[in-house]
């Protein structure tokens, strides 16, 4: 098995598919950001009749020529989409749908014709264009892929700034006088090139995944476009590497599905573990917020009840009456606060602040009342900054306003003060 992996041919294929993945991932990221993810899919599907026609004209299998045929009919596919949108009332999604089905239809018909008509029809290897096949890749194929991928990379780097603005804010790009139409066309052409060189390895049905998955996965790890492109390239490379190794190990399966499945595993991992917007990070942030917010709510309610009754002891029943919490929730909040050393449970169903807890409760209550006061007195300031996660207003408004609010709260006797002995103990 190891010898199989180290075979000369496997290394050639490994190199080819990895570079292909990196190039497609980078170019594809821009397509995703430009909301043109499906264009790549359309190009891939539209390429099939071109491959067949190229074979019919030449009468023998010649990869370069067939890829040129694929490029021609792929580009024809996008031109037809653009023309349908521009000159008829067909909308873009419908236009893409038409190309996505009519071109492969024509392609399948032609390929059946080739297989029936010519004696060497089965040698055309047309089926590898549908589901992908890496085994037959030769050294010149890899050179072709390398050159095309480097070309795509170079264009993306040189026109990085232009592509960025066009993808983010087309109207602004036009207002600068930039030829947005031609930049879009160039981006689509790069996508077409990336798709076409990937066809023999990945196949028309799954090529779009190689464009979309790396960029979509990379988005979970970064908020910066530069890093996104870099990570997408790396993910594409990795997809190619892993996919090729597995398709060499399981040679019964077509390569396309295995490569695409490798890509989707990377995507899935990113979706779950991505440091920027992955599910785990979001869940953790939400948990943290919930815990912090719940703790503050408990301290507020307890302080409120205690100052109303004048008793240091507060029963869970009072808290329940005060807030719309379930008994289980109150219990959970109390346990959390107790383990943070803010409150202590008494033998009855009652709790009491620890000295540190009282200091904290006064702090939280002050913050909360300042927010309330700010919302009442300065709604135009508070409306845009009010946030359940921020405990205090001092990040958002000037000290003068805070002093004003504090004075107003003191006048209404709503400014919580620490009992002197606790304050001294806290110091």
């Amino acid at each position, binding site marked *: 098995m190891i010898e199989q992996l180290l075979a000369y041919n496997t290394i050639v294929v490994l190199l080819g598919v990895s570079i292909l993945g990196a190039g497609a991932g980078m170019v594809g990221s821009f397509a995703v*950001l430009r*909301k043109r993810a499906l264009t790549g899919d359309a190009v891939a599907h539209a390429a099939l009749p071109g491959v067949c026609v190229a074979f019919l004209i030449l009468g023998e299998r010649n990869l370069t020529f067939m890829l040129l045929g694929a490029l021609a009919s792929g580009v024809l596919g996008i031109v037809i989409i653009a023309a349908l949108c521009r000159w008829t009332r067909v909308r873009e999604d419908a236009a893409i749908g038409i190309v996505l089905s009519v071109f492969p239809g024509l392609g399948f018909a032609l390929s059946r014709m080739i297989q029936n008509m010519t004696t060497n029809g089965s040698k055309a290897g047309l089926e590898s264009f549908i589901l992908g096949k890496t085994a037959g890749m030769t050294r010149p194929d890899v050179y072709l892929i390398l050159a095309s991928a480097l070309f795509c990379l170079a264009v993306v780097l*040189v*026109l*990085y*700034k*232009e592509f*960025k*603005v066009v*993808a*983010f*804010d087309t*109207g*602004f790009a*036009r*207002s*600068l*006088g930039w030829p947005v139409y031609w930049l879009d066309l160039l981006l689509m052409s790069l996508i077409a090139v990336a798709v076409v060189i990937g066809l023999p390895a990945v196949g028309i049905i799954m090529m779009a995944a190689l464009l979309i998955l790396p960029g979509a996965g990379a*988005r979970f790890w*970064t*908020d*910066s*476009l530069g890093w*996104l492109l870099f990570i997408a390239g790396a993910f594409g490379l990795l997809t190619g590497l892993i996919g090729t190794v597995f398709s060499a190990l399981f040679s019964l399966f077509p390569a396309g599905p295995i490569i695409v499945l490798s890509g989707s595993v990377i995507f899935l991992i990113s979706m779950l573990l991505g440091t920027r917007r992955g599910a785990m990070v979001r869940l953790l942030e939400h948990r943290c917020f919930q815990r912090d917010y719940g703790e503050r709510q408990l301290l507020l309610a307890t302080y409120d009840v205690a100052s109303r009754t004048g008793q240091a002891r507060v029963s869970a029943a009072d808290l329940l009456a005060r807030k719309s919490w379930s008994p289980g929730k109150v219990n959970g909040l109390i346990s959390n606060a107790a383990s943070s050393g803010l409150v202590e449970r008494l033998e009855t169903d009652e709790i009491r602040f620890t000295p540190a807890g009282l200091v904290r409760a006064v702090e939280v209550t002050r913050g909360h009342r300042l927010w309330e006061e700010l919302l009442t007195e300065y709604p*135009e*300031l508070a*409306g*845009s*900054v009010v946030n359940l996660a921020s405990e205090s207003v001092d990040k958002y408004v000037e000290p003068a306003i805070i002093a004003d609010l504090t004075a107003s709260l003191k006048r209404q006797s709503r400014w919580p003060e620490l009992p002197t002995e606790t304050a001294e103990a806290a110091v």
Partner: protein
Amino acid sequence: MSPILDIHDVTVAYQRKPVLWDVDLIIEQPQLAAIVGPNGAGKSTLIKAVLGLIPMASGSVQVLGEPVARQRKKIGYVPQRESVDWDFPVSVLDVVLMGTYGRLGWFRRPGHAEREWARQCLNKVGLSQFERRQIGQLSGGQQQLVFLARALAQKAEIYFMDEPMAGVDAATEQIIFELLRELRQQGKTIIAVHHDLRTVPLYFDWVALLNMRLVASGPVETTFTPENLRKTYGGRLAILDAAGEAMKAGSEAP
């Protein structure tokens, strides 16, 4: 001297339905100008047609005596906030930097000088502390301010703004107004689509009333009259009342 903006006989149509019909508009002097009119009156369309973002069926536009295509570097643009995807992976400073791209020219990357200038512009709108944030993490009003900072970074002579005060809170609206006034004092011209009739006399000194055709244009004191508003909005009373109040408030203001 040639006028700042000369819109001549502009017609824009979708299919055969006109959105703007034979609009003539001349702004001679630097102004803080509002374009006002009911929904669907073609306010945004006028700005987009002037900038060449959408094709005109007929007509011509000159900025400072030359066709728009030759004056791109003197034009700043603030699109509607809803027109872009705020989830896009760029930081606040990145967006402001885009304002320098028009001067940079093809292929060139923004350098230290551009970054410094973008920081200054961001500082002007009071968002310096957010420069590294992803743009989606800002509030709506802050997003609008980022767009304004980008326009400032363009160092333009004439600014076109599509609803710069739409959906922002009162405090941000005040900041935006101060910025517009400062630009105006530097001799720049601002042409803003504005939706709130009540604040027209407070914020602007020149107004164009638009409803597919240009109903009236000129200084606010003489043009923003109940009669012209009736022509623009038809007989919709609630709006006219609001405008009447606005006129009163405007005449009472110092």
